[in-house]
């Protein structure tokens, strides 16, 4: 797989720095260049994060999880509780629904709720992944996929019936204080940059993680788990650790997403298994499972296509999206990165020259 680290040659690492600079500049400039779609751009980074964290499991560890949405949704709810409960009666607030949702907070209260909310969201994602991991990561292959699918439905049902957080009628996130057009702009910018920051942190953390012994070990588990066990690798530990990394970033990501969309429905926003839960898989597969840039490429293509379809083909968007999936699977079975690797291996830093000078592996 295309991995960062010493296996890459000089040209590839120079290209990498340039690419990062270009993407970084574009990302910072984007909300100012396209002020009308800042929300969509923020959600784009959410897509990037869910694709990357899915790929840690599906691409690097070889465990196709349909349950990652659980950590995302749990992050939304935990953050919601921490952002709302200290300032009003949670039960009354959620029972009142949309009409009664007039929670006006001061800036200090708002940020004082958001910051610990994000931390708690990370913690819940991390802890849930460890707890579920020890139970469900004993399943392999299709059994794991089905088990995680059931997990998603199970957790969604719990929240859909939990009155405290609004049950099936959902919950409305508090609004960032400030009125008028200018402050609306600031609100979207705050969350855009938080999402960008988190996406950057996720990508660079994973890029580093994949160069460590940990990265090699989870790849070994993906390639042949029985062999990895027979070689003395404590596979359960590595599998649970990998899922907890996913859970950590997904928890924060969910909390940010909840604040961006502001209305949280248990089944359509938080635990949207058939939507986001599947899209995260699609993006990683489209871009190229198990490659460093695959999830990013997948997220760009998928999010752009999806937004265009929803805008110009409303009513047929799911049909068009389905068609896209079929095209991907038929023409790019290894994803865009796999397709590039097969044609221009040097471009992704792959070296096969048997007479090459000896070089350090990790």
């Amino acid at each position, binding site marked *: 797989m295309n991995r960062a680290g010493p296996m890459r040659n000089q040209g590839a690492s120079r290209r990498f720095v340039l690419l990062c600079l270009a993407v970084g500049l574009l990302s910072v400039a984007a909300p100012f260049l396209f002020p009308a779609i800042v929300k969509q751009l923020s959600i784009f980074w959410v897509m990037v994060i869910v694709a990357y964290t899915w790929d840690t499991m599906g691409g690097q560890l070889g465990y196709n999880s349909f349950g990652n949405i659980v950590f995302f949704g749990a992050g939304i709810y935990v953050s919601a509780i921490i952002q709302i409960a200290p300032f009003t009666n949670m039960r009354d607030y959620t029972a009142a629904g949309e009409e009664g949702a007039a929670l006006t907070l001061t800036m200090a209260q708002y940020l004082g709720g958001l910051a610990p909310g994000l931390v708690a969201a990370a913690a819940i994602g991390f802890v849930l992944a460890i707890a579920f991991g020890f139970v469900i990561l004993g399943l392999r292959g299709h059994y794991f996929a089905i088990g995680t699918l059931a997990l998603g439905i199970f957790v969604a049902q719990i929240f859909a019936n939990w009155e405290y957080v609004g049950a099936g009628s959902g919950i409305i996130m508090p609004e960032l204080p400030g009125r008028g057009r200018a402050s609306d702009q600031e609100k979207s910018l705050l969350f855009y940059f938080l999402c960008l920051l988190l996406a950057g942190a996720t990508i660079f953390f994973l890029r580093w993680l994949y160069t460590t012994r940990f990265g090699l070990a989870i790849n070994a588990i993906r390639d042949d788990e029985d*062999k990895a066990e027979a070689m003395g690798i404590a596979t359960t530990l590595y599998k649970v650790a990998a899922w907890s990394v996913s859970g950590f970033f997904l928890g924060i990501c969910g909390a940010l997403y909840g604040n961006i969309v502001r209305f949280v429905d248990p089944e359509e926003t938080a635990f949207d298994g058939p939507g986001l839960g599947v899209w995260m898989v699609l993006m990683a597969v489209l871009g190229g499972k198990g490659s460093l840039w695959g999830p990013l490429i997948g997220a760009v293509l998928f999010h752009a296509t999806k937004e265009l379809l929803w805008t110009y083909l409303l009513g047929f968007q799911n049909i068009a999206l389905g068609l896209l999936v079929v095209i991907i699977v038929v023409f790019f079975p290894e994803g865009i990165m796999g397709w590039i690797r097969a044609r221009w291996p040097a471009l992704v830093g792959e070296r096969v020259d048997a007479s090459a000078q000896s070089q350090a592996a990790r």
Partner: protein
Amino acid sequence: MTPLLQVREASKSFGGVTANHDISVTVGEGEIVGLIGPNGSGKTTLFNSIVGYHPVDAGSISFAGREITTLRVPRIARLGLLRTFQQTRIYPKMTCMENMAVSVPHRGVRLRRMLSRHPPEVAEKSEALLEFVGLYAKRLLRGGELSFGQQKLLEFAMALMNEPRMLMLDEPTAGINPTLINGLIDRLKRVNADLGITLFVIEHNMRVIMNLATRIYCLAHGELLAEGPPEDIQTDQRVVDAYLGAS
């Protein structure tokens, strides 16, 4: 010779099929011991029981004086008792060098070590061992791109990377061409003599096992049929009837 591996009266059945019945095997430190027998005689089952892949129904197994009967696979491997697979198992999507690096011993791995890179010595040792099995030129290829025979050699090199005390090889020469087999016998002997690794080898190729082993166990129908030095086993009437056939 001090016994390194001791299997005492091990039995294992799957449903109604008795794969191993009352089998006792001892392998001394530094020995090369062979395990032969017809297909389905329970050789691989015995290997699987020893390395903890499935628990034995009765009997006990100890390694280096330590009871390992109920330990799980990775624990036993970390004690230095390693096996290779009959079907050959390597990590197909990782390069040969990565296959080697990930095979370093996993004894006492802590979080800080998990999150560090391998020191340069690991790459040097990987290259040296790939050279030893004759795969140096292929080191940047992915495991899955190698031929079956080459994968077998890679798996052998990976096992050595793990620095085991004892290596259990399940048909190391199956699928390897005749000229390479001689080289492999030679390498196995060197591994035993130079690195002091005890070998326990399942093998169908009689020329190989007679050449390699100092002692041989023969299984048939899940029971231990005979045990002894190669020349005795070769002429043992029960072994000839059950396995070798009259020539």
